[in-house]
């Protein structure tokens, strides 16, 4: 059995009494003092996450833009230096190999055109795919995942902590932009992004600065109530914010439109890209959806969990992709994927119409009994981005 990889902050997690679990080949902290406490601390004050398991890729060479345009569903033509965009990396059939954030790094990272942050669990699929597709382009796909650590500092107090560490609020990058900066005497890339629905930052740097930055941020515990947060609360926070998790809401057999992320797909994109036919066809409604992701709230005290079967009018027609109690709402929430080929066409057309689908009752099977849930709009909470 191969041993799980450890981030450069592993010893810090142990010191803090974290409970460690395997996650995507990594030994990661799932919680420190408790998921609910960490969740509320992030929403109300600030939470610090070790997300060093995430992958980083540098894209270099004169064909960088053309190459990326040929592999993602989004249009990067107007992505100016320092700006970031949430992107989908489809396969030939329009399913997703990964969901990623692309940063235009021109003038920010020496000799590099783009920085890409990718899912830890997809590094071994995503990078070989990109390297294969790079053939024929004057471009280099450089895997930096083993060289860089990453922290996320999220919540309303994040900006005050970053200010204390040397970057005034007016100098801080705006939402979905990044900059190169010196934070507490450590050179970092500072991004205004996150996975919680809160204002906050992600900080990318060489491993040797990890403990120094981690401990410096946590030293603001008294002043700004910042706490370390594990993967447990990371999951409830992203779920409330309506954000998808690869392997749950996203996979190789489902297009981003079917995963209810059509908002992020441009109406038109001139360049051809892998998987374009089905994705653009679904975007323009010329091609039908095969399945669709819905957000739901349980009407009952039962908690829906990933893989639980979903029924509509007593017909089994899908599965829960993620489900958990929402600490903010005090209700049990989740996402489910409904398979349209299991349902009659009148129901499918109702589900295809967002307004008509809202409020519809579905049933979730929990321990062999059906319980009602209502389809709702995502996100479950209001996002607090600093736009």
């Amino acid at each position: 059995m191969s041993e799980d990889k450890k981030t450069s902050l592993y010893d810090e997690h142990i010191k803090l009494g974290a409970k460690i679990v395997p996650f995507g080949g990594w030994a990661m902290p799932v919680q420190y003092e408790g998921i609910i406490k960490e969740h509320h601390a992030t929403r109300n004050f600030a939470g610090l996450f070790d997300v060093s398991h995430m992958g980083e890729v540098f894209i270099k060479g004169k064909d960088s833009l053309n190459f990326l345009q040929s592999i993602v569903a989004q249009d990067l033509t107007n992505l100016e230096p320092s700006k970031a965009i949430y992107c989908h990396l489809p396969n030939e059939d329009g399913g997703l190999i990964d969901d990623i954030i692309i940063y235009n790094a021109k003038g920010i990272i020496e000799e590099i055109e783009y920085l890409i942050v990718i899912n830890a669990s997809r590094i071994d699929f995503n990078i070989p795919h990109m390297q294969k597709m790079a053939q024929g382009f004057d471009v280099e796909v450089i895997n930096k995942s083993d060289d860089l650590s990453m922290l996320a500092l999220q919540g309303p107090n994040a900006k005050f902590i970053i200010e204390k560490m040397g970057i005034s609020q007016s100098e801080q990058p705006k939402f979905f932009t990044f900059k190169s900066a010196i934070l507490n005497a450590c050179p970092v890339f500072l991004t205004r992004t996150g996975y919680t629905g809160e204002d906050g930052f992600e900080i990318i740097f060489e491993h040797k600065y990890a403990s120094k930055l981690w401990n410096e941020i946590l030293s603001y515990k008294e002043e700004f109530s910042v706490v370390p947060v594990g993967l447990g609360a990371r999951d409830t926070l992203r779920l409330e914010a309506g954000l998808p998790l690869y392997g749950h809401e996203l996979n190789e057999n489902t297009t981003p439109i079917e995963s209810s992320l059509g908002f992020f797909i441009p109406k038109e994109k001139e360049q051809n890209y892998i998987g374009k036919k089905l994705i653009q066809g679904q975007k323009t409604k010329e091609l039908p959806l095969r399945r669709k992701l819905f957000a739901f709230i349980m009407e009952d005290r039962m908690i829906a969990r990933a893989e639980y079967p979903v029924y509509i009018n007593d017909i089994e027609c899908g599965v829960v992709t993620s489900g958990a109690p929402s600490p903010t709402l005090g209700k049990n929430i989740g996402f489910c994927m409904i398979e349209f080929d299991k349902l009659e066409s009148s129901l499918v057309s109702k589900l295809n119409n967002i307004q008509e689908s809202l409020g519809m009752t579905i049933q979730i099977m929990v321990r062999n009994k059906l319980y009602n849930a209502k389809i709702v709009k995502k996100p479950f909470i209001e996002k607090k981005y600093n736009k």
Partner: protein
Amino acid sequence: MTIPEGILCSKTHEWVAEINNEFTIGLTDWAVEQLGDVVFIELPEIGSTFSKNETFATIESVKAASEIYMPVGGEIIEINEELINSPELINEDAFSAWLVKIKPENFQEDSQGLMEYEDYKDEVQ
């Protein structure tokens, strides 16, 4: 936290104790600590019977649902109703927050293989 006297524990982390001639079943402090914040506990109906090792209840933390097994077989004669509305009580004290009381079927035979608390602690640590 007071550990009930004469408590016996199973490998699947349930405890059973005879308290005032009643057989009480709960989940061990070690198991509760592993689960983290408990948000929901589903208890069986009074009058239902379960054999040893059969699932009789479910406990849910924020992250996952876990089944709870009968350390000895028997009929459910009382459930801890307080846990239905305040499942977090089990995080505070796993021994006072008992789950069910039972009328055992064959305690002598079923309790074979259960461990005394000290031995259980040695096993899980």
